[in-house]
């Protein structure tokens, strides 16, 4: 029994949990202040913000779909970071995946969904993977900073998607400016909650989430990835093929992002449109960062953010508070979590210096006695 609690203590980082709770508290406090200052009924607004996602089946469904997107994006980031490469290019991989998946659906419009959907998924995965492969190779072979290249590639992806969705792959209807043709209804994932965004894609996502968690935490490959990410020199020293692991992790991360794009199209939007992702990957990435690249916290924080987001939408509908309060509260959590590390480190250092001083003084006194 004692051993069990010891294990539990090792697995749960209480300091982290406390920091997360405090951050959430501070963020909600900031939100409250802003709500009060801008003259809203604070109590009602906060109630709506927190409870809104559970106010109806539709909101609940939308909330879950949003959590799914955040979680998959966050996990994609986890996979890269676990091996020591930081995939900031998920947004580009996501929209390219969405674009290609949508267009494959258009090309195969006469085929059976059993062929079209896997093909679309495959296309999205390949495109996303390839788009992550480029910065991965550049990092490993030439030591080019992957953060900057992926940021650049994000912009390139936006333009590629713009070109195809306004040009060759545009919906031929003259009223449409920049969308692909809508998919055949039979290609869409079936809705789990009618008239919400929640589709069977979440089941696939759940399986995928489990798989990522399983691979990262429970397999030998995940173990090798972890060592590579922690200390690539040590990994190489120990005989792990670190370079290859980094590239593969990056490609898998890109594949996941591509798949998220496909889910957005086949689960919710039904076509490629420029609003297919509103910097969702960046949000997922921030989730991953404050989850410290651990899968389970990533899931939990995705849920928290999704609840707040659809709560904010509900709040806008019912209390009239602008939905943007969501970004403010969300980033307040992130700022707190990012700053918390520095604060904790400063406290720790001060404590250690004091201890060292005491120790030496004690020795000095001991020495004096000897003299």
């Amino acid at each position, binding site marked *: 029994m004692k051993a069990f609690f010891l294990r539990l203590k090792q697995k749960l980082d209480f300091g982290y949990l406390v920091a997360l709770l405090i951050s959430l508290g501070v963020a909600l406090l900031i939100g409250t202040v*802003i709500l009060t200052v*801008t*003259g809203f009924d604070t109590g009602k607004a906060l109630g709506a913000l927190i409870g809104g996602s559970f106010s109806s089946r539709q909101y609940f469904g939308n909330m879950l779909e949003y959590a799914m997107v955040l979680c998959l994006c966050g996990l994609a980031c986890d996979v890269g970071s676990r091996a020591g490469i*930081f995939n*900031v290019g998920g947004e580009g991989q996501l929209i390219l995946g969405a674009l290609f998946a949508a267009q494959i659906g258009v090309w195969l419009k006469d085929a059976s969904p059993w062929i079209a959907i896997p093909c679309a998924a495959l296309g999205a995965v390949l495109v996303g993977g390839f788009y992550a492969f480029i910065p991965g190779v*550049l990092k490993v072979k*030439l*030591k*080019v*900073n992957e*953060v*900057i*290249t992926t*940021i*650049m*590639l*994000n*912009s*390139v992806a*936006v*333009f*590629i998607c*713009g*070109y195809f969705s*306004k*040009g060759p792959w545009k919906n031929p209807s003259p009223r449409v400016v920049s969308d692909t043709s809508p998919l055949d209804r039979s290609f869409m994932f079936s809705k789990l909650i009618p008239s919400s965004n929640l589709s069977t894609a979440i089941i696939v996502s759940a399986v995928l989430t489990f798989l990522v968690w399983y691979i990262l935490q429970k397999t030998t490959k995940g173990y090798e990835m972890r060592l590579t990410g922690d200390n690539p020199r040590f990994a190489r020293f120990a005989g792990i093929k670190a370079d290859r692991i980094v590239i593969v992790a990056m490609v898998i991360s890109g594949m996941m992002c591509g798949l998220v794009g496909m889910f957005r199209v086949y689960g919710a939007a039904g076509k490629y449109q420029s609003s297919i992702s509103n*910097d969702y990957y*960046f*949000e997922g*990435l*921030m989730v991953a*960062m*404050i989850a410290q690249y651990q899968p389970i916290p990533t899931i939990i924080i995705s849920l928290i953010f999704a609840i707040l987001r659809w709560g904010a939408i509900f709040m806008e509908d019912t209390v009239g508070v*602008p939905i*943007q*309060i*969501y*970004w*403010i509260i*969300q*980033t*307040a959590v*992130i*700022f707190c979590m*990012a*700053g918390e*590390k*520095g*604060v904790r*480190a*400063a406290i720790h250092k001060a404590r250690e210096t004091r201890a060292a001083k005491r120790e030496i003084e004690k020795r000095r006194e001991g020495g004096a006695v000897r003299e």
Partner: protein
Amino acid sequence: MNENSWSNILTVASSTLNQMLRSATPVALAALGGLMTEHAGIMNIGMDGMILMGAFTAAAVSTALMSAALGIVASVIFGILVGLFFALFTVKLRSDEFIIGCALNTFAMGITVYLSRSLFDSAGISNAPHLHNISIPLIRNIPFLGSVVSGHSLFVYLTWAFVILMWLFVYRTPVGFWIRASGESPETLRTAGRNPERMKWIASILCGVFCGLAGAHLSLGNLNGQFGQRMVAGRGYIAFACVIFGGANPVKVFAAALMFGFFDAIGLQLQSSKLVDPDLTSAIPYVITIIMMVYVVVSGQRRRERIAKQQLKKLELK
């Protein structure tokens, strides 16, 4: 070729170049700030948000006080605050500069639109008192040059001055040297008796100011007194690319901004001509930036190898 088509080409060329200056200015302003943090060794991808907040502050204050000038002043002051905030996290608390940049972008989206909606009951602002285009006497009458250079808003011209001033600041003042040293080799600066952290604070504040100005220019200059949620349109990232591309040298960074402006202008021209899709031309600068990065890394490796080889030869001679 007859005279008519010549004058056609001239018209297209001058309007393209005019548009190039127009498009390049907000990017160049922000990039002038971004190169400060880059020199100080802080990767700043939060410029998008800094610009947006600057744009909102300028538009909001300008509307409230009915004065574009006060709007600009407010955006500068707010820029200082944003810079302080950024430095608090990245320098003082040693948070990940990337997460702070990301969060700053999202935060800007939230706070500006939230305030806009609760203060002005609309997600955007329009008809704020704005800057008028300046028609330069004499120059405006020069045939080709006049139509390219004249008739821009104040900041287009100010930017040219800023580029020169910034170049002087970075490469010709002690503080400029210290800021560069604080990024490249902070311990060296420390042993020279100067505090590298303080330099990073200064760089961060300057970045905030320039991004604020870029925002003010966008809302009060380029868009004639408007603010909208999507108005920055990734210019912060473009500015970041310019900083990388230009090696954080103000003149080269400005050249990079002009290149982006040029491709933007070409894109706008092509939109009407339907020859090549403007989206493809817009992507070119980013691709070039990546190629440049690879080139810089590879040539750096070559350089090190060459120096090592020289040293080896010297040893062998002895």
